[in-house]
C-alpha cells in the first residue's frame, strides 16, 4: 500500500471515528487503535501514540466550550490532575515493558467496560453533604442551569484521587483518554453531578495525556506519517459531529450502534491479543 492510499484510508476512518465519537460522547480514540492495528496492520506502539495525540486534540477542542460556559470545575480538575499525571507517567514507563498482546488484551477489556459505562442511565444527583477534605481543598462548586446556579458538594476525595491515578495509568499504557473511567469515579464515588463530571473529565484528558505523550514522543511512538491523518481526521469529524448534535438533540440509536461497533472491535482486539496476532 502506498503512503498516499494509507493516509487517505486513515483520514476517512479517523473522520468517521471523530464524528461518531462526538455525536455519542464516547470519544473517537476507541476506533483509532483497532483501525490501525486490525485493518492497516500498523504496529500497536504507533497506534497507541496516534490515539493518544488524537485524544489531546478532541478533548482540548470540546473542553474549550465547556470551560467558557463555566460548567467545568477547574479546581477539581487541576487537583485530580496530580493523580492522573502521576498515573500517566507510570503507565507510559510501564508500557515499554509490556508486550504488544497484553496491551491489546487490556485495550479490549477497557473498551468493553467503557462502552457499558457510557450506556448507563445518567442520573443527575446533587450531593449536599459537606466533607472535610473537599472543603479544605475548595473543591465544592456550582454549575449553571438555565438562569440559576446549582451548588454541589464533593465526597470521597481520597478514594477518588487514588482511582484517578489508576485511570491515568490506563491512559498511559493504552493511549486513550480514559474519559469513561474518570467519569465513573467522579460520578459514582465522588458524587459529582453528571454535567460537571463529564466536562471536568474532558478538561483533564489533555493534561493527563500530555504527561505520557512527552515520553511517547521520545520513545518514537508518535510517528508523523501515522499521526497526521489521524489527528486532522478526528478533529474535523468531531467538529462535524458537534454541529449536528446541536440540531438533533437525542441520538440514542446512534449511541447503541456505536457501542455495538466498539464491542465488536473489543472482541477482535482480545482475540488477536490471545492468539498472538498483535
Amino acid at each position, binding site marked *: *500500500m*502506498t*503512503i*498516499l*492510499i*494509507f*493516509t487517505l484510508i486513515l483520514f476517512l476512518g479517523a473522520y468517521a471515528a471523530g464524528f461518531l465519537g462526538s455525536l455519542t460522547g464516547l470519544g473517537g480514540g476507541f476506533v483509532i487503535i483497532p483501525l490501525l492495528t486490525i485493518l*492497516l*496492520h*500498523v*504496529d500497536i*506502539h*504507533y497506534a497507541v501514540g496516534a490515539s493518544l*495525540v488524537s485524544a*489531546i*486534540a478532541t478533548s*482540548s*477542542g470540546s*473542553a*474549550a466550550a465547556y*470551560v*467558557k460556559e*463555566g460548567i467545568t470545575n*477547574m*479546581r477539581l480538575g*487541576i*487537583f485530580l*490532575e*496530580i493523580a492522573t*499525571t*502521576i498515573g*500517566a*507517567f507510570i503507565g*507510559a*514507563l510501564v508500557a515499554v515493558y509490556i508486550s504488544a498482546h497484553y496491551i491489546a488484551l487490556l485495550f479490549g477489556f477497557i473498551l468493553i467496560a467503557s462502552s457499558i459505562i457510557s450506556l448507563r442511565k445518567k442520573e443527575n444527583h446533587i450531593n449536599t453533604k459537606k466533607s472535610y477534605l473537599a472543603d479544605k*481543598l*475548595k473543591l465544592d462548586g456550582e454549575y449553571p442551569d438555565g438562569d440559576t446556579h446549582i451548588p454541589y458538594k464533593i465526597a470521597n476525595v481520597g478514594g477518588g484521587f487514588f482511582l484517578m491515578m489508576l485511570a491515568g495509568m490506563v491512559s498511559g499504557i493504552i493511549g486513550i483518554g480514559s474519559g469513561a473511567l474518570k467519569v465513573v469515579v467522579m460520578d459514582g464515588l465522588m458524587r459529582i453531578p453528571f454535567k460537571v463530571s463529564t466536562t471536568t473529565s474532558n478538561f483533564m484528558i*489533555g*493534561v493527563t*495525556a*500530555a*504527561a*505520557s505523550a*512527552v*515520553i511517547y*514522543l*521520545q*520513545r*518514537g511512538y*508518535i*510517528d*508523523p*506519517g*501515522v*499521526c*497526521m*491523518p489521524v*489527528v*486532522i481526521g478526528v*478533529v474535523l469529524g468531531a467538529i462535524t459531529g458537534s454541529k449536528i448534535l446541536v440540531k438533533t438533540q437525542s441520538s440514542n440509536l446512534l449511541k447503541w450502534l456505536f457501542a455495538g461497533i466498539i464491542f465488536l472491535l473489543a472482541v477482535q482486539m482480545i482475540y488477536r491479543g490471545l492468539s498472538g496476532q498483535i
Partner: protein
Amino acid sequence: MDRLQVIIGNLLRIGVYASISIAALGGIIFLLHHGNQQAAYTAFKGIPDYAQPAHVFGNILHLKGGAIIQAGIMLLIATPVFRLIFSAVGFVIEKDHLYTFITLLVLGIITFSMLSGYAG
C-alpha cells in the same frame, strides 16, 4: 475566574486549530515527497531521525514535511501544558496560594516525566 475561563477556553481552541493547520501543511509536503512510497508501519522501528524532538526545528527550515507535521503535533501536546501555565498565573492573581502550588506541582510532574523519558 470568569475572565480566566474565557482566556483558557480560547487558548485551548487556538492551540488545537494552529497545531492541526501546521500538521496539514506539513502533511501536504510530506505526501508530495513520499506519497508514492510504500507505507511501512507493520514493525515498530521508532521514528525517522528528522522527526526526533531535538531535530524537528532544524528540519523545519529545510521544509521537511515530516518535521513540520511533528512540530504541529508537539504544539498540540504543549497546548494543555500552556493551559496549566495560564491557570497558574490566574491563581497567582487571585492570591490562591494552595492552587498556585497544586498547578505548579502538576507542571512539575509533566516536566519530570519529560526529563525521565530522555534518560530512558
